[in-house]
């Protein structure tokens, strides 16, 4: 997002805070793709993802009067979206999922994509499908960091503001996520190179 876009967002936020619903609908339209992208990468391409994306905007709308514009609107939205995804992930595996619980390799809940025979004729779409599935199999803490860094292209400072985690910790999570994904996709090396 450019500085101009952020300024536009700020004007739309202020108009929304004055009760201008048209302004808020413009904000939704502007950020729908990013938020839906995050929820889909975090939760998988299921109805949950779209519903959570909608809930993100609804929650933002309700909390808008208290939003002081002390961060970018997009940062604030990402934070809401990630929190909502975390809630959904906790509910999916009641009693077994602690988002703080991963072993040092992230291996405890790491599930390899599968043990299929490598498809040497994989098209790009199939590669994307494998990559997508592997991202969704990452431990949630690694997944959220990797998605924000490499799917959304955010910097570590903004990620830190979104997730409330220090930069170095985020770098470590992204580092581990990258290594896990490289391992998971190793069987595709023949078609990726």
């Amino acid at each position, binding site marked *: 997002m450019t500085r101009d876009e952020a300024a536009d967002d700020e004007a739309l936020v202020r108009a929304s805070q004055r009760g201008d619903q048209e302004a808020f*609908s413009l904000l*939704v339209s502007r950020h*729908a793709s990013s938020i839906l992208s995050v929820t889909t990468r975090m939760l998988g391409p299921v109805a949950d993802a779209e519903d959570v994306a909608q809930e993100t905007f609804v929650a933002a709308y309700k909390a808008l009067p208290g939003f002081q514009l002390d961060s970018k609107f997009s940062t604030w939205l990402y934070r809401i979206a990630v929190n909502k995804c975390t809630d959904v992930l906790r509910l999916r595996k009641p009693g077994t999922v602690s988002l703080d619980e991963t072993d040092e390799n992230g291996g405890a809940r790491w599930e390899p994509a599968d043990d299929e025979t490598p498809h040497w004729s994989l098209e790009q779409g199939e590669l994307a499908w494998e990559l*997508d599935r592997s991202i969704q199999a990452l431990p949630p803490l690694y997944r959220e960091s990797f998605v924000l860094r490499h799917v959304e*292209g955010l910097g570590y400072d903004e990620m830190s503001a979104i997730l409330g985690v220090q930069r170095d910790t985020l770098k470590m999570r*992204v580092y581990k996520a990258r290594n896990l*994904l*490289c391992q998971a*996709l190793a069987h595709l090396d023949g078609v990726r190179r």
Partner: protein
Amino acid sequence: MRETDADITGSERLVQQFIDQELSGEDRVRLLVQLGRDQALREHVIDLERLALDTARLPRPAVPDDFVARVMQRAAPAPSGWRRALDALWAPRSLQWNLAGAAAVAAVLLVAISGIMILPRANPQSSPLAATESPAPVLVRLVVLQPDAKSVGVAGDFNGWDPRRTPLEPMSGGAWTVTLSLPPGRYEYMFVVNGDEWVGDPLAVEQNDDGFGLRNAVLDVRPPAETTL
């Protein structure tokens, strides 16, 4: 869960910084030298770069056409007909008055308010149902401002709450009016705009809850002999 980089080797740290494009010029040279010597490290860097590239190229999910509309419906649902009626009633609006219209409405308002307010309250028991005699009816004029309305009716105790039986006539300046001939008693009523929007009477001096979240206007009609004029 270990989340410090204490265990990352110097080369791994360089590689991660390279992927994140955070290397200084000197460190970049240092890494390139290492990559020239170490094939495994070189392949690892290529894998990571390819991963970053493939991830950035992942197709973004399509946003459904009605996504914004559904968000807005959930975030700020359209108010009910009753709510809209109330909002319309109390929302500030600018009226274009012409002098003749203003004078006419002012006169009517004066008559209507006088007719309602200056009647004595000596007979609080009176009601249409309680009346045992047939006293002379009293003329009461109701006025409501609805500049945007196509039709206005009034529904109340006096007409079986059927607004079709008592339509109001438009006047200039957005005012609507009707003159009723009512036996003395207390009546509750509401206006009905465009056939389905129930609105209260902001000029009524007394109002009662209607049990549905709105307020009925109360019209206290007294016999002419009890007026204090």
